[in-house]
């Protein structure tokens, strides 16, 4: 079995002392969190550990001792070894390092073998005796450290016997003994691991059979209270960890945090007033007469307004975010609202400067006139002989005149509205101050209102065509002597009377010969409607993009990539044959595509459930298509 010790890089050059950390449940590994320096009082160390354990919930303990001896400290080794008796642990790690040497040396002392330290060494200089004590071999069967290299100062002071073996003898030993413990040091950057979040995010408590790395990350991130003790504190303990040089913080972040509290209070007060007004409106009987709810659910501006107000209400709640997902969600929403408003202000600046509004207003009415004229020409063309097809004159005239009258009504309506267009545009442009998404939603609504006649034409054409198709299919079955059995949902044969057959065939012929005319009108108006739908769809997609893009997460991935971790990667730091293996664990950041997929803010638009084949089938049969149906959010 390999014992894995996760060692922070900041403690590589720490002075000698005690190792504070945690054993990982279910795996043969330990995480070192800090080094508490000598001189200390063991009772105070124990009290400190209990205090931190209560604050953080992490099962802390003294793992062992660390010694990096300088010239002044000679007797530290023995002292640290003797501390074992004061801190009763199952296993005691003794890690030491020489200045100028890359590798560490480690030995493990087991509780069941008190005082017996069997440190095996490989003789690099061959200076000591090479006796093999076989009885000590058997004694140390279940608790062995396979470590190489002498601890230089303790050599003379050691009371226990030392073993020096060459490689061959060690191999023989491996075959003889049942268990050998190898040691692996994994160095990690404490600050990065503390701030990082492993994906996929799991919210449940970790069980011991779970991933070891997840437990390491969780232990380090929960031990934040341990890292608040820096070297300038006047307390009884001195420790080394990533923040022992002093806590760092940004003044801007702290000021923003302090400023956010009154801001959140004002926004939440504002929303409580707003919701009171809304509930008053919906409860008052007068407004029940108007189909306000239906209208609000159809206009995308109202939907966007309710969506954003939901977000702002969630943001302005005084509770801080619990957990990583909630924090990211709030941050993404806030950044998206700010970017939205910034873009909206840019748009406003462009609109209200250089008289753009009057230019737009002056261009709008002639554009509408032009569209109406084109439609009239189209209808005249259809009433003639379009594309060489010969239409049924009577039906043609009826349908053509009906649609022409509609266009005439619409043109008069536009002309009626033309003096107010500029004012409407001016006030509509103000909505861009709320955000670019509102301006786009308003634009989409205006497009829908202005092309309402095209929608009407489409509905008329589609209904006529649909009726025709059903009539034709039913009469065709009659023509062949069959009938649709509604009970069995299949086609059955049926014997018709003579007069039924006669009328049926007559109607069938009429419908069949009128079919091309209706089909052509239907085709033309469906294409126009689809054009409008595509335009509205582009606007809605843009609004959806602004709403759902997790800009904060993307910025975090680009600047502080260690916070969003997909996994880890290892590289070898030191693999000298006489020291344990040292690996460096670095954080493997999440790819940008996964960042966007994981942190997308859910929006209200639901994309059409129909696939392309279904859509074409519906168009062929004449069913009405509703491409952009909104999921309404209940605000009450």
């Amino acid at each position, binding site marked *: 079995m*390999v014992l894995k010790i996760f060692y922070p890089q900041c403690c590589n050059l720490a002075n000698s002392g005690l190792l504070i950390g945690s054993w990982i449940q279910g795996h*043969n590994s330990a995480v070192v969190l800090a080094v508490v320096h000598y001189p200390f009082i063991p009772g105070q160390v124990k009290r400190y550990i209990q205090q931190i354990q209560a604050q953080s919930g992490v099962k802390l303990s003294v793992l062992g001792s660390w010694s990096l001896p300088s010239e002044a400290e000679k007797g530290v080794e023995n002292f640290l070894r003797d501390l074992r008796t004061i801190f009763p642990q199952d296993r005691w790690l003794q890690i030491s390092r020489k200045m100028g040497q890359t590798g560490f040396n480690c030995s493990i002392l087991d509780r069941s073998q008190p005082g017996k330290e069997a440190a095996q060494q490989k003789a690099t200089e061959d200076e000591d005796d090479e006796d093999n004590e076989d009885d000590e071999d058997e004694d140390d069967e279940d608790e062995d450290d396979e470590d190489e290299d002498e601890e230089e100062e303790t050599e003379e002071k050691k009371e226990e016997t030392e073993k020096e073996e060459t490689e061959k003898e060690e191999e023989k030993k491996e075959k003889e003994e049942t268990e050998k413990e*190898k040691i*692996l040091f994994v160095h990690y950057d404490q600050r990065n691991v503390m701030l990082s979040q492993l994906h996929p995010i799991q919210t449940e408590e970790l069980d011991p059979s779970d*991933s070891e790395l997840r437990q390491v990350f969780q232990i380090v991130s929960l031990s934040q209270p341990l890292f608040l003790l820096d070297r300038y504190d006047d307390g009884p303990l001195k420790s080394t960890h990533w923040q022992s040089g002093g806590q760092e913080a940004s003044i801007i972040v702290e000021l923003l945090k302090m400023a956010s509290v009154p801001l959140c209070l004002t926004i939440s007060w504002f929303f409580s007033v707003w919701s009171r007004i809304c509930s008053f409106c919906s409860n008052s009987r007068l407004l029940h007469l108007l189909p306000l709810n239906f209208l609000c659910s159809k206009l995308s501006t109202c939907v966007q307004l309710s969506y954003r107000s939901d977000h702002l209400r969630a943001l302005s709640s005084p509770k801080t975010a619990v957990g990583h997902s909630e924090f990211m969600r709030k941050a993404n929403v806030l950044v998206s609202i700010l970017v939205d408003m910034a873009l909206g202000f840019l748009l406003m600046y462009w609109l209200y400067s250089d008289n753009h509004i009057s230019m737009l207003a002056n261009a709008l009415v002639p554009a509408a006139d032009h569209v109406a004229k084109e439609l009239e020409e189209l209808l005249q063309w259809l009433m003639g002989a379009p594309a060489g097809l010969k239409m049924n004159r009577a039906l043609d005239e009826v349908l053509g005149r009906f649609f022409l009258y509609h266009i005439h009504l619409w043109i008069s309506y536009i002309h009626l509205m033309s003096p107010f267009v500029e004012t409407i545009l001016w006030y509509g442009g103000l909505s861009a101050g709320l955000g670019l998404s509102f301006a786009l939603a308003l634009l989409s609504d205006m497009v829908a209102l202005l092309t309402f006649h095209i929608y009407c034409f489409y509905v008329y054409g589609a209904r006529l065509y649909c009726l025709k198709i059903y009539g034709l299919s039913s009469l065709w079955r009659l023509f062949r002597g069959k009938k649709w059995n509604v009970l069995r949902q299949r086609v059955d044969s049926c014997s018709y009377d003579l007069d039924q057959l006669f009328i049926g065939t007559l109607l069938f012929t009429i419908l069949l010969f009128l079919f091309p005319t209706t089909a052509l009108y239907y085709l033309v108006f469906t294409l126009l409607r689809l054009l409008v739908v595509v335009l509205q769809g582009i606007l809605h997609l843009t609004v959806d993009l602004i709403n759902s893009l997790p800009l904060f997460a993307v910025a975090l991935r680009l600047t502080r990539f260690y916070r969003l971790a997909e996994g880890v990667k*290892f590289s*070898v730091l030191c*693999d000298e044959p006489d020291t344990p*293996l040292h690996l460096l664990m670095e954080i493997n950041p999440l790819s940008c595509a996964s960042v966007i997929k994981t942190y997308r803010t859910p929006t209200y638009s639901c994309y059409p459930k129909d696939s392309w084949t279904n859509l074409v089938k519906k168009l062929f049969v004449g069913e009405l298509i509703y491409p952009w149906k909104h999921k309404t959010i209940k605000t009450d």
Partner: protein
Amino acid sequence: MEGESFTDINGTPIFLDCQSHSTFCREFTVTSPKVPVTKVIVFTCSIWLLAYAVFLFTEDTVVLTSAILITLVSMMLYVHLVKVEQETLFIIGSLGVQMSSSYASGRETTTFIELNKIKDIVINEAIYMHQIIYYLCVLLKDPSDPDAVSSVVPLFQSSKPRLNCLMKVYRSCQEILSKCP
């Protein structure tokens, strides 16, 4: 550090390098040969001659500019996204297995699989176009059902070494996996 030359399934020579950092930690690197200069020259010249031929007919310099841009962009994309220079398998007993590919532009992608998710490392057969090839893969187990294989992660996908090379890697991996449960 031992290195040996092998061939991949198409016959191009590749180089396998085994490095043993410790008794429970080994690293295998498969290096593919670099893109030969002749191929680059042939590709560039063919596109530019074609563009020049089109230019003779159309007399528009946009054709030439676009040909130059296309060649540059496609070569950069190829070097950055497609051409794998070397693939490494780093197996650490009792921790897990790490696979990394380094591309010709210096970009490196790494994946680490923890030991509790690994069921086994095996050599599998696959039907690849008109031939049957062997590939080394890692079998992952489902946390809910430890006996079933939830997915298969193939190793050395770009260099595609042959069976003799794979056997060497396989034997080394099995030594380590069997020692550390």
